[in-house]
């Protein structure tokens, strides 16, 4: 496995399965009354968040703490970054403090890639611009596997703002690696121009895709995109690409509904569907912690085995 996790493309099928299997083991711990493992004792993980993201930061923080790592949270607001310090200087500062792992969320695509050239420790991409969010893809795959078993040949439909979505990019790459068949659905304006070079299918017609989907994953669509003419109105978007009761009825019995959050209820998904038993949205959050524990454990090379088994 690579020293860093920057893109889902960094993971071979074996790497990805190892992470998912490790996460499965670690999930057992989450059920215990004492959730903490000594695995990363004495190691330092820095959460470097240049973008507000309470959800992802807390998830990484919980994951590192359950492995007994020392956690330093660093958010751009109120730090030297807001005084004009460069990413490179921030990286050198972390380096001087001896960070073993750096979890970075940044608004600029490629920032984790740049960071990995300036620090010795492992870099974990917690979302960069409109590039990737590989741990989200891992936790999504973990969630699918728990609900549906093996992902080989499973049909996953991802709906929404593909153009601006780092979640879609990472999911397409990882699910392809794991043998699933991905179809992206969006209005043509919300696809990158060269999406036909991606390892997935593309459709503009949600209703046609639903009956054959094992998974439908809804992505957030910001209503403000309407101002840049990506679609005429929020209402029209919802009518054509939103998931409501009528559309859910078109899904096979076993199919699940996913959303990486944050949701725009009433835009891409109706509240009834988001809160229905088919929805895995809350599960995804819980699975985020175990999946990120597995990533940190495997990248930071814990000196002890994950949960006391063989190393």
């Amino acid at each position: 496995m690579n020293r860093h996790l920057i893109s889902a493309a960094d993971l071979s099928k074996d790497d990805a399965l190892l992470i998912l299997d490790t996460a499965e083991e670690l999930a057992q711990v989450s059920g215990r009354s004492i959730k903490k493992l000594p695995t990363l004792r004495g190691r330092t993980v820095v959460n470097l968040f240049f973008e507000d993201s309470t959800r992802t930061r807390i998830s990484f923080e919980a994951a590192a703490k359950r492995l007994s790592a020392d956690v330093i949270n660093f958010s751009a607001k109120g730090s030297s970054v807001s005084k004009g310090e460069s990413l490179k200087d921030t990286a050198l500062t972390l380096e001087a403090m001896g960070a073993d792992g750096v979890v970075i969320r940044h608004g600029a695509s490629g920032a984790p890639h740049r960071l990995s050239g300036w620090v010795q420790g492992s870099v974990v991409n917690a979302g960069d611009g409109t590039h990737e969010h590989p741990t989200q893809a891992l936790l999504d795959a973990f969630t699918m596997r728990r609900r549906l078993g093996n992902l080989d040949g499973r049909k996953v439909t991802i709906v929404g703002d593909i153009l601006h979505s780092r979640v879609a990019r990472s999911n397409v790459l990882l699910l392809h690696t794991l043998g699933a068949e991905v179809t992206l659905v969006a209005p043509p304006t919300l696809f990158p121009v060269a999406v036909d070079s991606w390892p997935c299918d593309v459709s503009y017609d949600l209703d046609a895709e639903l009956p054959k989907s094992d998974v439908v994953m809804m992505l957030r669509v910001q209503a403000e995109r309407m101002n840049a003419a990506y679609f005429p109105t929020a209402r029209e978007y919802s009518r054509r690409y939103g998931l409501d009761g009528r559309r859910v009825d078109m899904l096979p019995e076993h199919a699940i509904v996913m959303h990486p959050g944050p949701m725009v209820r009433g835009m891409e998904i109706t509240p009834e569907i988001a809160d229905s038993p088919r929805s895995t949205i809350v599960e995804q959050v819980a699975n985020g912690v175990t999946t990120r524990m597995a990533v940190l454990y495997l990248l930071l090379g814990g000196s002890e085995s994950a949960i006391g088994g063989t190393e």
Partner: protein
Amino acid sequence: MSTSYLIRGARILGHTPADILIRDGEIAEIAPGLDAPTAQEIDGSGLIALPGLVDLHTHLREPGREDAETVESGTRAAARGGYTAVFAMANTSPVADTAGVVEQVLRLGAQAGYCDVHPVGAVTRGLEGKQLAELGAMADSAARVRVFSDDGHCVDDAVIMRRALEYVKAFDGVVAQHAQEPRLTEGAQMNEGVMSGRLGLHGWPAVAEEAIVARDCLLAAHVGSRLHVCHVSTAGSVEIIRWAKGKGWQVTAEVTPHHLLLDDTLAGSYDPIYKVNPPLRTKDDVRALREALADGTIDCVATDHAPHTLETKETEWAEATMGMVGLETALSVVQEAMVDTGLLDWAGVADRMSYRPARIGRLNGQGRTLDQGSPANITLYDPRPRALVDPSGFASKSRNTPYRGRELPGRVVATFLRGRPTVLDGGLVPNFSTSGATR
């Protein structure tokens, strides 16, 4: 009385070796086996003699950004690259949009002296695209400006562009357009295509260049004026320019060395050393640009030498400045992309890097054939050595080269400006100064 020089056995434009005698700033004689006992001899064996190179597109950054480049450091870089004349772009601070600023740049060039400096005048006041700058005053000034450009910005308003094209006819000027439709390129970071989609970087679509190139060709035809298209970067622009030239319209175009060699897959490193405007395009575009330069559809190579300080490149991609230095590597890159591939011979290089750019910029004393009586603007180039590019040796104040550590062929051995060497034995001649640019 100035020193005479006798270049022994250089291959003029790559042809049979001959001797070149330089005296009183001119080429006194060209023949095999010349005899000139008082002249300083220079061994030219194995070297190619080219007319001094002319760059239509250089950013010297002075006044305003002397931390990135000065007229002096930029002209030293030019001399090391084999250039004897450069056109200094107008996007300085203050903008070169008045006679005063262009005369200041002219004066700085004359003082620095390592090559002729011809200021480019802004088309519009403050490069804002709203109101014409005093084009006539700049044309009539001591700088005798003939090339006008808002480079870095596109003159996107069709009426302003039409008027500029019409107005410069009065003094045989040319409008050099940076073709970039602004709305289609808001927030643009790199070529829009397979790579931008994968990297999640906002795309700069080819159509944003091509739409402006097409419009400007039609405008130039309509008003019967001269248009020059800066840094052509797409196969589509090439097609449009080929069509416009076929109609007999007065359209010329340039391509940068980097667009002849590099493509957008390099952005995969997220290293902003590869961030430039217009962006690096696809391999197909590179191929089309090479063919267009070879067949003359694209008239010349222009460096778009764009010095930037280190801190503006050691950042996230989106934060970084756009641009690359190019003067000191241009000839090597052209050899690699055009000569060693068999697309262009050395006579072709002389045409695309000296004769034609001088003609577009209306220079008389530059871009002349190497003949008896011509001003002795000569570049001696050794195409044989290959070496790794090491920017620490650059004369430019900036180091933002995309070729660091890349092996490139060739080396400029000597550059003569009106009979005086600015570069000898591959190194700058110290304390050089000249009497200043002449057209």
